[in-house]
């Protein structure tokens, strides 16, 4: 059952002279919930943005379904299967909640409007936002926006969903509602790759944790391995600061 779906091979990324990612190797299996943790500037968001090709890696390969996507001409096909949820939501400001969730279905997947609305409503319901279909993004709270953004990504029925610090821009009160939705998704078997500062989420929901520092993967393993028996001193240092601090 351990079918690998997404694989990073010797991935590197430089911005000018600055090497942000160095020789990143790791594999995401189908149904995995992988959390990437690490301090700010460790390259974890860049890694996730590379995974969606919002940044172009400067070396290495990203293998999806057995194909290196970096050599593919069009990114569109790949992105339809690998969704992304952003820290700053990025809902389309010129559309209401429903349109935000249907526009990908109608314009990218060429699904008829009626059918698209049905699909969108189903996912909006699953994140508890179906009552807000007529609202515009600026009329929603941060937590509501993020739940709509999750519904928008889900509506495309992706094989993998990437989360780039989905709760970092939220008020403490609203973090919970988004994490609850994410927990439900994890339970449903969705393959998720999550960059997060929520250590409790990583510990309780992930089945794999990756710790990054200064552009390299320092350590990876199960939550028990990372949180209870970290092997590397750098991991121990980071965890002692984030969990006790």
């Amino acid at each position, binding site marked *: 059952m351990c079918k690998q779906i997404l694989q990073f091979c010797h991935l590197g990324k430089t911005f000018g002279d600055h090497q942000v990612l160095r020789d990143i190797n790791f594999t995401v299996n189908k149904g995995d919930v992988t959390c990437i943790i690490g301090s700010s500037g460790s390259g974890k968001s860049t890694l996730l943005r590379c995974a969606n090709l919002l940044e172009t890696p400067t070396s290495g390969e990203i293998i999806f379904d057995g194909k290196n996507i970096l050599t593919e001409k*069009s990114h569109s096909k790949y*992105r339809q299967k690998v969704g992304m949820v952003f820290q700053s939501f990025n809902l389309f400001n010129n559309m209401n909640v429903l349109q935000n969730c249907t526009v990908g279905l109608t*314009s990218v997947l060429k699904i008829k409007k009626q059918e698209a609305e049905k699909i969108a409503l189903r996912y909006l319901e699953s994140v*508890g936002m179906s009552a807000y279909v007529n609202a515009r993004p600026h009329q929603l709270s941060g937590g509501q926006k993020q739940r709509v953004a999750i519904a928008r990504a889900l509506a*495309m029925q992706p094989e993998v969903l990437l989360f780039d610090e989905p709760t970092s821009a939220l008020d403490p009160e609203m973090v919970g509602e988004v994490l609850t939705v994410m927990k439900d998704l994890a339970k449903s078997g969705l393959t998720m790759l999550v960059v997060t500062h929520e250590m409790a989420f990583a510990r309780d929901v992930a089945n794999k944790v990756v710790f990054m520092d200064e552009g390299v993967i320092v350590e990876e393993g199960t939550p028990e391995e990372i949180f209870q028996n970290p092997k590397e001193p750098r991991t121990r240092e980071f965890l002692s600061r984030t969990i006790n601090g």
Partner: protein
Amino acid sequence: MNFLQKMGNIFAEYYDWLLQGVGYTMLVALVGTIVGLLLGILIGTYRTIPNPQNKFLRALKKTGDWILTAYVEVFRGTPMMVQAMVIFWGYALVNDGNTMDVIVAGLIIVSINTGAYMAEIVRGGIISIDKGQFEGAYAIGMTHSQTMWQVVIPQSLRNILPSVSNEFVINIKDTSVLNVIGFTELFFQAKTIVTMTADTFATYLAVAIIYFVLTFTITRILRFVERKMDGKKNYTMQGAGNLDADAYAKTQAIGGGNNV
């Protein structure tokens, strides 16, 4: 009070001339602004295309960029009155002295002149859109042109509408320079009326009033359009039976829906 009477006489006697002038002025201003805006949108979209990987395509894109920059700079950097003369008589020169239809010439000149300004206005509108809007669209698999037409251009248009209204108003007034090629817009008509009444002041005052009424009406209409584009301030909740939503809504610090 004598001149008021004279003005009244001018309105009464030459109203059909004035109306014709108003008609042509508005025609050329409207067409020029719309075509100019379309040109601006096309140029703005082209300029934001990410650089292609392929060497040949990149060179092609560079050349296109260069031509568009030249177009914008030349037409912004020279007076429209001069452009009108150059285009009108240039056409006649290469066509053995046959001149272009004056109406067509006027429409073309104002359109491409406005296009040069609009290109910059639209570019400003596009770069004012948060990068996250592009990324959100790319992330669900939209291509660059889908992203532009569905997400970015609609938002840019809303943002640049005040500048577009401004261009429209400028066009209503500046079409007066087309009198140099014999375009029978409002100012041209005024000149003709003066030759008959010999009352320069009253004629031009009447025309000034007409110009002002035109521009003022247009700005009010466009302000109304802006408000329409912003949509309703409130929204209605749908399907109150969605227990999840209600449960979530109760945990919200900011409640939605009933803030009338």
